[in-house]
C-alpha cells in the first residue's frame, strides 16, 4: 500500500462567512451530512477522524478532536489532529492515507472547521514573540511578510504591479465562486491594489488574507474500497511532502528560499511529474508575494524571475496556468482551517467547478504554508499532487 492506493471520494464546503452565525460544531455537522449524502456511506462506516489543528476556536482545548468525535457520534480507530499550521489540510490527506495503509482506519473523515472570527482562543504567548518581536511591535504575519518582501526586493527588485496582477486574477475567480466570502466578491484592478493602504510597508491591504469563518471536509478510503462502493469521482493523491523548520539548524538563511524547494522536488518526484506538467496550481496564499515565491521554489521559474513569470502567464481559470481558481484564501476568505485551495483542487478535478471549471483536469498541485518563525519566512511548507482516478 502507498499514498496512491488511497482516494478522496468526496468534498463538502460551507459558504465562507465574515463571522459565523452558527457554532463550529453545527458547521461540522453540515459537512458530515453533506459527505454522507453525496457518497451514500453509512455514518457508522467512518472509523477515522482527521482534523486540521489550525483552529482558533479549538485552540485552547487539548481534547479537540476527541470532543468533536463525541459531539458528532463518531467511533473511530484513528483520531488525529494535524498541527502544521496552514499545511494542516494537505497534511491531513497524507496522514489519513498513511492511517488507511496501516490499517488504523478504513474510512476517514477529514474535517476542517473553524470559527476563529466568532471565537478565537489562539494563544501565542509561549513562543519567541513575547521576548523578540512583540516588544518591537512587529505585527505578526503582515510584519514578517513586510520584512520578507523588502529582503526580496533588495535582492532581485520587485514590480509590485505584477503582484497586483495575481490579486486581480484571484479576485475574478472569487466572483465566480458562490462560496467565497460575500464581502470580498467585489472586482478590483491593479490600480486598486497599488492604492490599497499600507499595513506593513511594502505589504498592502490587498496583499493580505482576511480571516473568516467556515468549514469544509473530505472523505477518504482506499481506492479498492471506493471501487467496491461504486464511487466514481475519486481523486488520488500521488505525491506529498512537507518540511518544517527548513534550515532550522542554521543561523543566517536566505529568506527568499523556503522548504518548498525540498518538498516540491519530493512530491513531484513521487508523482513522476515535472513542474511543467502541472495543469492547475493551488498554492497557499496568506500574502500575494507567497504565490510568487512558490513559483520560484517549485521551479516554474528561476529564483528572482517570479515577476517576469507573472508577466508572461495568464493565471485565469481558462488561462495557461490556472491559479487558485476559487479565489484563493485572499479573495475567498481565510476560513475552514485554510483548506480552501485543497478543496477547490478536488472540486476542479471532479469537474464540478461550474463557470470557473478548468479545461485541463489531468492533475493539480496544492501547497501549504504554516506558521511564522523568527527572521525567516515560514515554519512549514507542504506540497500535494492530485490526479483524477
Amino acid at each position: 500500500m502507498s499514498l496512491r492506493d488511497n482516494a478522496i471520494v468526496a468534498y463538502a464546503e460551507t459558504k465562507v462567512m465574515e463571522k459565523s452565525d452558527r457554532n463550529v460544531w453545527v458547521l461540522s455537522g453540515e459537512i458530515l451530512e453533506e459527505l454522507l449524502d453525496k457518497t451514500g456511506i453509512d455514518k457508522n462506516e467512518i472509523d477515522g477522524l482527521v482534523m486540521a489543528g489550525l483552529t482558533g476556536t479549538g485552540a485552547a482545548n487539548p481534547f479537540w478532536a476527541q470532543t468533536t468525535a463525541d459531539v458528532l457520534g463518531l467511533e473511530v480507530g484513528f483520531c488525529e489532529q494535524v498541527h502544521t499550521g496552514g499545511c494542516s489540510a494537505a497534511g491531513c490527506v497524507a496522514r489519513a492515507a498513511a492511517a488507511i495503509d496501516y490499517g488504523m482506519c478504513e474510512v476517514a473523515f477529514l474535517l476542517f472547521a473553524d470559527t476563529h472570527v466568532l471565537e478565537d482562543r489562539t494563544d501565542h504567548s509561549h513562543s519567541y514573540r513575547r521576548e523578540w518581536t512583540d516588544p518591537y511591535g512587529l505585527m505578526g504575519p503582515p510584519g514578517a511578510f513586510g520584512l520578507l518582501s523588502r529582503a526580496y526586493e533588495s535582492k532581485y527588485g520587485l514590480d509590485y504591479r505584477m503582484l497586483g496582477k495575481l490579486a486581480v486574477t484571484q479576485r475574478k475567480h472569487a466572483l465566480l465562486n458562490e462560496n467565497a466570502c460575500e464581502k470580498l466578491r467585489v472586482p478590483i484592478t491593479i490600480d486598486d491594489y497599488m492604492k490599497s493602504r499600507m499595513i506593513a510597508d511594502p505589504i498592502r491591504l490587498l496583499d493580505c488574507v482576511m480571516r473568516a469563518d467556515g468549514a469544509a471536509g473530505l472523505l477518504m478510503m482506499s481506492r479498492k474500497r471506493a471501487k467496491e462502493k461504486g464511487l466514481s469521482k475519486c481523486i488520488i493523491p500521488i505525491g506529498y511532502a512537507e518540511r518544517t523548520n527548513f534550515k532550522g539548524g542554521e543561523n543566517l538563511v536566505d529568506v527568499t528560499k523556503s522548504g518548498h524547494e525540498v518538498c516540491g522536488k519530493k512530491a513531484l518526484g513521487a508523482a513522476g511529474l515535472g513542474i511543467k506538467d502541472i495543469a492547475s496550481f493551488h498554492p497557499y496564499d496568506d500574502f500575494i508575494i507567497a504565490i510568487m515565491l512558490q513559483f520560484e521554489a517549485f521551479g516554474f521559474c528561476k529564483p528572482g524571475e517570479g515577476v517576469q513569470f507573472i508577466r508572461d502567464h495568464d493565471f485565469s481559470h481558462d488561462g495557461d496556468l490556472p491559479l487558485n481558481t476559487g479565489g484563493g484564501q485572499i479573495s475567498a476568505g481565510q476560513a475552514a482551517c485554510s483548506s480552501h485551495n485543497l478543496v477547490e483542487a478536488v472540486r476542479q478535478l471532479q469537474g464540478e467547478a461550474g463557470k470557473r471549471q478548468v479545461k485541463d483536469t489531468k492533475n493539480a498541485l496544492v501547497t501549504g504554508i504554516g506558521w511564522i518563525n523568527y527572521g525567516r519566512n515560514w515554519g512549514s511548507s507542504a506540497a500535494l499532487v492530485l490526479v483524477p482516478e
Partner: protein
Amino acid sequence: MANTSNNKPLNDTLGVKRTINHFDFSEPYWEGTRQKKLIIQYCKATKKFQHFPRPVSIFSGRRRDIEWREVSGKGVVHSYTITYRGTPAFRNAEPYAVVSVTLDVGVNFIANIINCTAEELKVGMKVKPYWHPLDDGTHLLMFQPDRNMA
C-alpha cells in the same frame, strides 16, 4: 499614504509601555542589557553565534556547547518594514519601522530603529546599538544609524 520618502525622523517607539515576560533560558541576555551589554549565545562546538536564545545549540543540539559572549551590536540593515497598523500597545506610534539587522557576528536581530529618517533607511545601512531603558532595569536593544563610518 505610504509616506516613506521624506527627511523627517520616523516615529520612534520609545513611549510605548513594555512589560516583557522572559523565558528562563534567556535570562543571561537580559542580565547583560542591565549594563547595556549585548550578550548572545555562542556554540563552542561549531564556533557560531545564534539568536534568539535557545535551551540548546541549534547547530549541535547540545546544551553543553552553549556559552554567552558579548558582541558589538554593530551590523547592517538586512530588511525593514514600516508598520502602519501596529499591535495594540503600539497604537498611535504608527508609522514606525521594524528592522532586521544582520549583526557583524552573523545573526539577524529584529528591532526598532531610532534617530533615522525614512529617506535614510535602506537595506545595507550600517547601524549600531541604542539602549532603551525599561522599568525593570533592563534595556531593550534598538538600533540607530552608524554615521561614523571609517
